[in-house]
């Protein structure tokens, strides 16, 4: 092993997306034969950094040095030519062709196509990396499990013998057996002198694999620790510690009856969820990406079926089979993907606001335009939606105003429970604090509110109580008084629950 050779050094990497500073002065050093773990909360900048390494984005500032020479990548092909491969978390697999063709998809044009030779070479490679038992070279792409798809993506990288490989949460779709195979593969790469970056949320894995750990927070570089000289708590402290003062602090509203109670609710996405929300209460749901938070919201909203357990609303067991059932039960749901799942971008503010309550502004089947416009105007005023008129197309509004239109749609139903999935994602600071104020006001009017958020300070700022999810389960419940970022992050990265 050649431990001290720095294969890649990134210094002062900066990347802005409009006014958003995704990365500011990030440092990363990858050494030949070493595994460097890259850690940080959701949105800390890990993915952006990997995209820069892969040549997807060009950095606005800073320098990439490979083997002592500065490099710039215009596209992923440049990165590959420099011997650097980034393994995607959700690989693109061609369903209609075999594993062998999927692995060598970029080379087929150059080397000519000989199916037999290709299959032989694939089998040799799979054997070399100890993966021949879990995947067949001639299996079709469409037959592969998520774990096998991930293996194909890893094989795509290793067959070109790169000197630097970056893994982006490779174990999120793998089972126990495949994880141990992957670790063996990483050890082998390491022994051959490959420099490895490894992004993961799972502490146990990181302590098992990594030599060094680099921590990012809010797009900035926090520090790099040697694995023998650090521990779990220290890493969590490095990852959190954001300034809370910019976030909303609210006075809790008086609590009323229990509006929502989940009793051991489960389906293909979530498992034995117990959760209660009372009138006037704002309940936060925290967790890492993929913990099952959005799926839980969609289950309560009736978009995913409940297969085990029961949903109790205001003391009555309700069978919710489709969204209209949950609407009838007094539930409003603003999904995470605002544009894809909530808005009619080609229609007016008026149309969007009245979508669910169209009947109430109609006589028989005829929409009463004046009543409808009055409804939209009412919410434009109350939520301070900045739009030239009720007739403006929603697609022309800013993100914050679009989100307010979604809120207007559900407030018009006079809900007793509101489910808000990432209500402030992608909207500016001013609109964020307005949304917090709306949530606070609703709670004081006795509405029960559930807020899913990946921003810990946001969850801490607005919630009366917080559930933390990991691996489709609730891994812990924290009251406002005892909630800290450290505590929530520790629960969110609960390895026992994940495994």
């Amino acid at each position: 092993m050649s431990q001290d050779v720095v294969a890649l050094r990134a210094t002062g990497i900066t990347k802005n997306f409009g006014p958003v500073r995704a990365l500011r002065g990030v440092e990363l050093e990858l050494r030949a034969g070493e595994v460097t773990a890259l850690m940080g909360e959701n949105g800390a900048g890990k993915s952006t950094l990997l995209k820069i390494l892969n040549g997807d984005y060009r950095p606005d500032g800073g320098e990439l040095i490979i083997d002592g020479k500065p490099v710039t990548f215009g596209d992923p092909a440049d990165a590959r030519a420099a011997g650097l491969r980034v393994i995607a978390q959700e690989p693109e697999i061609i369903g209609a062709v075999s594993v062998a063709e999927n692995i060598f998809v970029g080379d087929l044009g150059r080397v000519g196509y000989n199916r037999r030779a290709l299959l032989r070479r694939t089998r040799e490679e799979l054997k070399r990396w100890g993966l021949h038992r879990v995947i067949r070279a001639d299996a079709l792409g469409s037959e592969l499990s998520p774990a096998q798809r991930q293996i194909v993506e890893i094989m795509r990288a290793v067959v070109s013998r790169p000197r630097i490989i970056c893994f982006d949460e490779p174990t999120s779709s793998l089972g126990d057996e495949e994880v141990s195979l992957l670790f063996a593969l990483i050890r082998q790469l390491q022994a051959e002198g490959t420099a490895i970056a490894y992004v993961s949320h799972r502490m146990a894995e990181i302590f098992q694999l990594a030599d060094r750990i680099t921590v990012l927070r809010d797009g900035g570089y926090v520090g790099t620790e040697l694995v023998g000289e650090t521990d779990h708590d220290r890493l969590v402290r490095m990852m959190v510690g954001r300034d809370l003062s910019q976030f909303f602090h609210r006075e809790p509203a008086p609590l009323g009856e229990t509006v929502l109670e989940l009793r051991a609710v489960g389906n293909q996405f979530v498992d034995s969820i117990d959760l209660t929300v009372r009138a006037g209460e704002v309940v936060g749901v925290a967790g890492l990406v993929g913990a099952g938070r959005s799926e839980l919201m969609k289950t309560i909203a009736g978009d995913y079926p409940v297969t085990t357990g029961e949903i109790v609303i205001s003391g009555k067991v309700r069978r919710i089979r489709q969204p209209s059932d949950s609407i009838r039960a007094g539930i409003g749901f603003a999904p995470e993907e605002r544009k894809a799942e909530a808005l009619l971008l080609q229609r007016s503010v008026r149309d969007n606001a009245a979508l669910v309550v169209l009947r109430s502004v109609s006589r028989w089947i005829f929409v009463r335009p004046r009543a409808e416009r009055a409804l939209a105007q009412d919410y434009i005023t109350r939520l301070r939606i900045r739009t030239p008129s009720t007739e403006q197309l929603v697609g022309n509004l800013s993100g914050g105003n679009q989100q307010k239109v979604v809120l207007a749609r559900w407030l018009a139903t006079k809900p007793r429970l509101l489910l808000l999935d990432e209500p402030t994602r992608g909207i500016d600071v001013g609109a964020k604090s307005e949304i917090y104020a709306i949530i606070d006001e609703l709670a004081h009017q006795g509405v029960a509110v559930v807020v899913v958020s990946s921003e810990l300070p946001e969850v801490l700022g607005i919630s009366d109580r917080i559930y933390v999810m990991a691996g489709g389960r609730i891994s812990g419940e924290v009251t406002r008084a005892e909630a800290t970022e450290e505590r929530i992050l520790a629960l969110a990265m609960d390895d026992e629950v994940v495994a």
Partner: protein
Amino acid sequence: MNAMTRKDTPVSTTATSPKTDPRGAPEDDRIPPLKRFVTAIGVQNISLIIAIAIVVAIIGIQNPLFFTVPNLKVIGTAIAIVGLLAVVQTIVIILGALDISVGSIAGLTSVTSAMIFTSTSSAALGVLGAVAIGVACGLVNGCIIVFGRVNPVIATLATLAAFKGIAQLISDGRAQGYTGADPFFVFLARGTLLGIPTLIWVLVLVAVLAHVVLRYTTIGRNIYAVGGNNIASRLGGININRYIIGVYMVTGAVAAIAGILITARTGSGQPISGSEGLELQAITAAALGGAALKGGKGPSPAPSSPSSCSGCSRTA
């Protein structure tokens, strides 16, 4: 139907552009009258009207008979059948789907209306039977799409062949029955009301009905919603499946009316000759009329201008 990906938040730079918002923008008073007129009609419709005007002018110069009243009536009746199909196709497209089988349904109902009339000698039964069969065809389309989870294009492509096959089978591949002596069918084909041919009245009636439903009712608004964003519609409590099946049934019914008109015009039930290729003309007319093929967007008035455009050139 809709695959919007989440992108960066848009900046509302176009917020006050009068073209994107001709109705409610407060700037309305300051727009010159000509521009307001153009936006009211729609820019693309203007180009269509100009195109029609040019075609009409050229034909009119070459053939002085073109502008005579009888010829204009011929044009009107020629566009009535494809116009009907274009109107309902517009609704289907706004819903985010497509119905390729309308021509076959028209053929099938043309044959059956004539056959039922011949065996019962009741025009009313012939008409009712044909409409019932059209509705049933639409129900089949809708159920295949909803319960078979088949893409609407594929599903109706299959039933295009299937309905055509059934029409051939029951008619032995020949024109069936004779309706040329029945007063009702004659009235449909050649009669007039207030000097305007009956065929045109039928088209106008269906178009106005479609316009009212799309523009002023909860049903129409939900059709736009489903076509614009089916996930948002589902989460908003709209029963999407019911709308898909319903719209296809209505389409089947209107296609049946078109089939009855074919029978009336030719005097007998035509399994294929009167209806072949109508589906493409209808889709073309709907698309030219401004219906966005990805759904959720489209004019509610009948796309009669494009169909008249093609009608003019064909009769000339």
